[in-house]
């Protein structure tokens, strides 16, 4: 049937266009900034050409790292948002609705109180400076996820009750964080916590980038394999079970995988929560809700959106670099509103 063939072709066309756009954005993002390089320099860097001067190369490599970090994190945040919306059957769900960002921020504050943000030595193991805050953020996010899972499976809470419980816990974490800030932290430490919650891709170093890239790859494969199952679970537990998918197991598995990915991103880059909400909805408005197309589309939209937001953050009030979390909300919110109004909600 021609109309169906055209529908599938259109969806594939959108995926191809946004992929090409993303590939084009890479050299463009590398070339813009305080030091203006040419697109040719950017291409040369990407192709490993050694003819560019060393100082230019060093500056561009830093930008390349930012660009790749934005793409990897955009993929993780975009796809986990889509997945949580499906398994919790709630368009407002995202891994952050489960209280991960607040838990992570609390972890950072606690690391600062304990005075171990510099380095920790335990017997012969020395964990050095840059990873202490991420590790605390990561541990606290995972603790929150475990708590959510216990609530879901031991107390048998429904999806809605689960979101409500998670929101309640987020407020509790926020209250503890405020209390800690009020009573125990000095101005510098408060500034560190606040700055950490802004979300900034510049903090991701090469090691962190490699870890996030691996996580992004694993998540992409996992969700592509599970795409039809995500279609089924979003229709209802009974219909999913009847078609051979165990909804409880899928929900557990998908929540764990998503939470792990998001905790990793949050630990290294801070809170970039809005992307989880905005990327899936923009993707859905264009390719529809079939996860076979929605999963790759939300990964690509997430990556492109985060990259553009970071480019704007780097250039709009240059030489000051604005944290990407702030810029993203400035671009994402009006964009989502516009698409919702245009698409009739």
């Amino acid at each position, binding site marked *: *049937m021609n109309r*169906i063939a055209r*529908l599938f072709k259109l969806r594939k066309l959108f995926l191809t266009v946004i992929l090409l756009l993303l590939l084009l954005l890479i050299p463009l993002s590398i070339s813009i900034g305080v030091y203006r390089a040419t697109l040719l320099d950017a291409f040369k860097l990407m192709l490993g050409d050694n003819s560019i001067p060393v100082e230019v190369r060093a500056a561009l490599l830093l930008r390349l790292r930012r660009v790749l970090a934005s793409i990897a994190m955009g993929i993780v945040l975009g796809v986990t948002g889509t997945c949580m919306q499906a398994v919790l059957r709630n368009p407002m769900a995202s891994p952050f609705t489960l209280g991960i960002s607040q838990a992570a921020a609390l972890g950072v504050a606690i690391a600062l109180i304990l005075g171990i943000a510099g380095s920790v030595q335990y017997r012969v193991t020395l964990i050095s400076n840059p990873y202490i805050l991420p590790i605390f953020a990561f541990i606290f996010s995972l603790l929150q996820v475990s708590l959510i899972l216990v609530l879901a499976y031991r107390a048998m809470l429904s999806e809605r009750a689960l979101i409500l419980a998670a929101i309640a816990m987020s407020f509790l974490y926020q209250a503890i964080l405020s209390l800690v800030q009020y009573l125990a932290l000095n101005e510098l430490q408060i500034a560190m916590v606040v700055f950490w919650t802004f979300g900034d891709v510049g903090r991701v170093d090469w090691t962190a980038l490699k870890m996030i890239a691996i996580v992004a790859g694993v998540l992409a494969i996992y969700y592509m394999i599970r795409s039809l199952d995500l279609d*089924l679970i979003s229709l*209802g537990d*009974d*219909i999913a079970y*009847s078609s*051979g998918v165990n909804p409880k197991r899928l929900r557990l598995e998908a929540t764990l995988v998503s939470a792990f990915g998001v905790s990793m991103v949050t630990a290294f880059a801070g809170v970039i929560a809005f992307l989880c909400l905005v990327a899936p909805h923009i993707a859905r408005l264009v390719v529809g*809700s079939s996860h076979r197309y929605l999963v790759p589309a939300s990964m690509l939209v997430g990556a492109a959106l985060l990259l553009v937001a970071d480019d704007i953050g780097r250039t709009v009030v240059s030489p000051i670099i604005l944290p990407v979390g702030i810029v993203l909300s400035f671009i994402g919110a009006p964009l989502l509103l516009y698409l919702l109004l245009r698409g009739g909600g």
Partner: protein
Amino acid sequence: MALIRIQGVEVRYNSVKALDDISMDVDEGEIVAVLGPNGSGKTTLLKTIDGILKPVKGSVYIDSKNVLQMGRKEAAKLVSFVPQHINMVQGVKVIDFVVTGRKPHIDFAPTTRDIELVLKYLRYVDAEHLADRDIMELSGGEFQRILIARALVAEPRIILLDEPTANLDIKYQIAILNLIAKLSKEKKLTVVMSLHDLTQAYRYAEKAIFLNNGRVHAMGKIEEVMNEEVIEIVYGVKAKVMPNLRAVIPIT
């Protein structure tokens, strides 16, 4: 042995007994109506047959195998369940929705053959023209046909329908029931459906089971069990059964 055998099944929702000591046999190609007032256990029985609900006592056998001991995929190839409601998601096209019914046969992604089958069954329920429409835009009758097409693409031997005529106008009610009768005849499909309308059950089912408070009140050939006494006890309503018209009308 019968295609579906239910033996001494008891199902509980926490401490509330929803089904109590239910036993019945359904042969291949039969159309069975599950009847009874609201809350009598009709939907629970359908879900128990499909293995969605686990009985605390007794067992359900499909083609001589215990449904709970089969793999979910294997069970899904044999039995399709058509629920009364689904969670409607915006942006899902009819083709995307119906292809989810192929899940038991799909390992990774739907193939061209799966899509062809979807179109074939959409044609069968006279809904091919709706394939690229959003499921939120369909009328009640159109959506019911799509739900049935979704169940059929798994090419099951048994189809369980939960009140397939609810919320439909009379024209669509007849169209859906005619479609079910056609399926049973042409595809040798075994049909178990819960119904509220006793006249429809009388006209389309071969066998009926009357449930009352989770227990079987009457069961057997439709002509034998569809009588005024049974209806009055089960529903608490006086009714006139007219065998010549195959109709039941309440008398107030």
